[in-house]
């Protein structure tokens, strides 16, 4: 069997259910692959891991991947199981926010570590400075959890539809107390959780073949997970080394994830790609990428895998 190491972007959770399902259900084995899944964490940069040779494939958000490309690390998107973005800004209604026009003068929690690009782009489209003051917004680097919103340290925080939002709800705030701004709806959505490999590796036909099989098995896993959310969540829980996840949360997450993967067969939609690039190029004073990248994606793998 061929060895493949996959580096996740975050800790083991239903966000990555497809891969765990493929592993658990033997889909990888059927393709004669021996797959190792490495969970990530708050300070694991997948791009760095693949550069160091610690992984064959990584999951990453497209803004980070394109930024890495500009830094000279040639990442190529080979598959895109996530059709839509799950990122949104969740605000408390009691701060008086009813729409993006009310952001001025407020404190907003944002994830950095490469996740800040769509946000910065959005703010620059809204014409809001991120330097604070009455005319701009005060940005705070949000940690791993939703505390800033609960503690009223921020008016809004970044959340994922499938994760942090529900943590806010679990903490006791009601959906009626909250107002959310999905990046999809704001027109600043960027592609999340694509599979990336190094361009130079793709030159090797053996590697390419390995990836074809990997993508095929992974997509099989994803579709299985979409259809069997409860069992998929169970598989994720079994694979969580920390034993910290709860079933309730993972089942719910799986349900939300299924909404994001729905509509993707794994192949990158070029229109989505172009929209992401456009969003990033409009990134204001400190743009993520300075020019439209070339060669940042390929359909070669998915074409072979999905035929």
């Amino acid at each position, binding site marked *: 069997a061929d060895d493949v190491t996959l580096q996740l972007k975050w800790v083991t959770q239903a966000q990555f259910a497809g891969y765990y399902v493929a592993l658990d259900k033997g889909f990888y084995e059927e393709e004669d692959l021996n797959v190792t899944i490495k969970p990530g964490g708050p300070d694991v940069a997948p791009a760095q891991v693949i550069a160091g040779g610690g992984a064959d494939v990584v999951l990453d958000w497209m803004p980070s991947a394109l930024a890495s490309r500009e830094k000279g690390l040639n990442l190529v998107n080979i598959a895109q199981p996530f059709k839509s973005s799950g990122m949104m800004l969740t605000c408390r209604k009691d701060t008086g926010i009813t729409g993006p026009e009310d952001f001025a003068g407020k404190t907003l929690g944002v994830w950095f570590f490469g996740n800040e690009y769509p946000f910065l782009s959005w703010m620059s489209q809204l014409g809001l400075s991120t330097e604070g003051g009455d005319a701009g917004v005060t940005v705070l680097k949000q940690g*791993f959890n939703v505390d800033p919103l609960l503690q009223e340290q921020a008016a809004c925080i970044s959340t994922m539809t499938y994760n942090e939002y529900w943590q806010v709800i679990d903490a006791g705030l009601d959906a009626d107390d909250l107002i959310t701004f999905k990046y999809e709806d704001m027109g600043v959505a960027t592609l999340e959780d694509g599979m990336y490999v190094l361009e130079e590796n793709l030159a090797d036909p053996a590697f390419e073949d390995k990836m074809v099989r990997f993508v095929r098995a992974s997509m099989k896993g994803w579709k299985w997970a979409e259809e069997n959310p409860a069992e998929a969540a169970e598989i994720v829980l079994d694979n969580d080394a920390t034993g910290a996840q709860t079933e309730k949360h993972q089942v719910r997450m799986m349900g939300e994830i299924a909404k994001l993967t729905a509509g993707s067969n794994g192949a990158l939609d070029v229109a989505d790609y172009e929209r992401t690039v456009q969003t990033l190029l409009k990134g204001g004073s400190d743009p993520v990428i300075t020019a439209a990248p070339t060669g940042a994606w390929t359909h070669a793998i998915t074409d072979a895998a999905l035929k």
Partner: protein
Amino acid sequence: MKSIFPILTVVAAIFALWYVFAVVLNAPWAYSKAERAEVELSFSEMVADTMAQEKPRLPAPHQVGAEIWKTTVEKKITSKRSLIYHGWITLQATALGFAFGIGLGILLAVSIVHFRVMDMSVMPWIIASQTVPILAIAPMIVVVLAALQVDDIVAKGVISMYLSFFPVVVGMVKGLRSPDTMLLDQMKTYSASSSQTFWKLRLPASAPYLFASLKVGAAASLIGAVVAELSLSQNGGLGARLLAGSYYGQTIQIWSALLAAATLAALMVFVLGAIEKVTLKRMGMAQ
């Protein structure tokens, strides 16, 4: 044994303070919940609520205690939800890192004591090395070591070593230099070789210093292992547990992982203290 009672008193005082803080820190959430539900909270209802929140700002001691009980006694130790399981994983990395740290520390100390060049050129940089925030470079170390096909546990050990070798170097240098001039001169009158001086004088003389710094180093290597597990969470461990808890705002879980880590450190210090006592007694250095 004399100190059991004072320790218990202090611990009791800390628990009392802890409860007070738990009430004070958790009260705002209790009130805001009540406000949204549009009910009035009496003081005792408020206190009761602060003792039983799911994600309190500061969990009450009994909540942490119950969680620890649940995750140690009531879980099989092979379960991923058992703190003992995670503690064991962390302990392994700690032990490895500690062993590396002792080795590197003693090696450096011996060469610093024997070679002036080492003393002058390396010592300032050893101090500087400790001002580098380990949490910042831990992920990079992990990536680089993974690239070199090094086992994960060894990578954790290396990070843990980074923190633990320092106290060992400092203590050992002090210890190896602790024999006064007279004792060294005496060796000279015997025309002892420098290895004889090392084995018969410097090394035994450094024993008390070594133990003192080993205790500090043990705690440091545990911190190192926990930090490493933040970047290398796939195998579990108390650090991964801490991270997961903090990611989901599970304060009770954070505190129980924290207490488990501190207990682990205390255990190691205790064991080292016992070894120290026996060794020094056999060496005749403890009255």
